[in-house]
């Protein structure tokens, strides 16, 4: 339609949209570019190109273990938030119960609270829990995993609920009418219909967990840092392209996950 009647307004709109996009993407592109510079300190112009920063990043114990921990955390958080989030979404989407709206609002609350505040609150909560029960969770993997699951759940519930609400209720009834128990009807009819939503939820949960810095800050223990915290630590003393190489890898991983999520379901339609 746009092509049929080019308007000055339409052209301006597109131009400004591309400008904003360029503004957002340019730093990312520059970081990836810099990761290949031969310069020993980040700077322009490039004196040549090399892959050695990637090798150095991988050789660094901090980055490697941070990366592995972040990947594990991301996968575990995505899996747990799916296990908890899907039943919650079913309850929200299928049943009209008192407090349903309140739960919906509450689920969105973590998006409003600054991450650093949430992290501090969790830390204090963990300490209180430890005082009461003697079980330590602050500073160990369990505490970190709980925090990351909490990060991911609102997104999972939101995406899965939206997917469930788009499923035509009559096809589920049709399955039941044909002899499927409610469980079988869910597995055979509802699940395939919401599969794109589930894929998107997993991908997005992973990304949200993977890029988290603030919540983890309080909760990591000695010798157990996430990639984001490793990056921050490194930046305190160094400014060589190793950091750009790490960032480039990270951008690639997040980009792929978001792309997969977007392919599965028009993400932009839901967020």
């Amino acid at each position, binding site marked *: 339609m746009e092509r049929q009647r080019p308007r000055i307004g339409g052209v301006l709109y597109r131009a400004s949209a591309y400008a904003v996009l360029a503004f957002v993407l340019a730093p990312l592109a520059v970081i990836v570019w810099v990761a290949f510079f031969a310069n020993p300190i980040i700077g322009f112009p490039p004196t040549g190109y090399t892959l050695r920063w990637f090798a150095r990043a991988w050789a660094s114990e901090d980055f490697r273990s941070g990366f592995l921990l972040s990947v594990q955390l991301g996968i575990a958080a995505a899996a747990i938030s799916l296990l908890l989030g899907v039943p919650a979404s079913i309850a929200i989407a299928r049943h009209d119960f008192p407090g349903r709206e309140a739960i919906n609002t509450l689920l969105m609350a973590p998006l409003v609270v600054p991450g650093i505040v949430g992290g501090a609150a969790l830390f204090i909560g963990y300490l209180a829990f430890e005082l009461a029960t003697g079980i330590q969770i602050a500073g160990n993997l369990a505490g970190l995993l709980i925090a990351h699951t909490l990060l991911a759940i609102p997104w999972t519930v939101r995406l899965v609920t939206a997917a469930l609400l788009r499923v035509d209720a009559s*096809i589920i*009834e*049709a*399955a039941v*009418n*044909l002899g499927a128990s409610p469980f079988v*009807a869910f597995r055979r*009819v509802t699940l*395939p*219909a919401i599969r794109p939503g589930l894929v998107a939820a997993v991908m997005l949960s992973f990304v949200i967990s993977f890029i988290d810095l603030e919540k983890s800050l309080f909760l990591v223990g000695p010798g157990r840092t996430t990639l984001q915290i490793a990056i921050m630590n490194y930046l305190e003393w160094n400014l060589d392209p190793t950091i750009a190489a790490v960032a480039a890898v990270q951008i690639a991983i997040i980009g792929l996950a978001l792309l997969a999520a977007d392919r599965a379901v028009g993400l932009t339609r839901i967020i």
Partner: protein
Amino acid sequence: MAGVTLQNVTKHYGTSAVVNDVSLQIAPGEFAVFLGPSGCGKTTTLRMIAGFVAPTSGSIRLGARDVTAAPPHRRNTGLVFQNYALFPHMTVAANVAFGLEMRNCPKPEIVERVKAALLRVRLEAFAERMPRQLSGGQQQRVALARALVIEPDVLLLDEPLSNLDTKLRSEMREEIRALQQSLKLTTILVTHDQEEALAVGDRLVVMNQGRIEQIGTPANIFEMPRSRFVADFTGVANLLAGRGASGGRFVLAGGETVRQADAVAGTEAVLALRPERAELLAAASGRHANELPARVVTATYLGTVSDYRVELASGTRLACRQTNEPGGGAARFAPGEAVWIGWSETAARLVAPE
């Protein structure tokens, strides 16, 4: 094959009774039609039989089996939804096979029966298509095949034809009727289209505000509506209030006295006269028991017939439908023309006022 028995079935939502004390017996192999205006509780009744709505009180039996408390997936009913509700991620064949899989049918038998079911609705060539690749009428036939293949105790159709265009609708109507007859399947169809109801039903159940208004054969409902509501709903456009007088006479509210065979002296009633059962005359002919002078108000040419509105001297208005003469051109009478309207003493019927 099983019959369906509803006994004092009532459904309340909050304080309003959506279905109110409905008792009904549908014989094995019978084709029953629930007919009524929007919101009268047809769908709710059907969904209670399928098990998706629990009655507030009363009982439902399929054959000898009391299913009032049975979950929907154990009822063995075949429900066809208005929007077809095909599984979008399954092929046509997989859609039809679903019910058989749920019944743990052996694989070879499933293949055999799916093939036969698709053949029955003339869709054997479409077995591997996805539902979205089918037209509305084809989707409808898949939904029908899917419901039929499980050999349900009762086939339930909720306005199955309302999403189809007029021509396809009458074709599908005949197809459904033919299938029902060849399988001798107990069937309930819900509609608010009286023509559809008359065309397919062995028996019509006219519903109004959650109650059964009248049950009868199509001819019975059409010719002998018992209430003003049924008469109105089955297309009796002329409903004239009045009071019976002695000697088979009926006095209209406008003051005209007409001959009416079933009039009872002193009883308030409503004269129900179908537009096509009255005749417009250029002059009094003496051929009808009732002939009243009138004036044409509107004339609408509809091809085979013309519809007229005429006004009696008292101001009472009547609708009248006349078959057009072959090659006769436009409507025979024009607005403003003085005419006579005539009908016999058995053309109309008295029904109870509301």
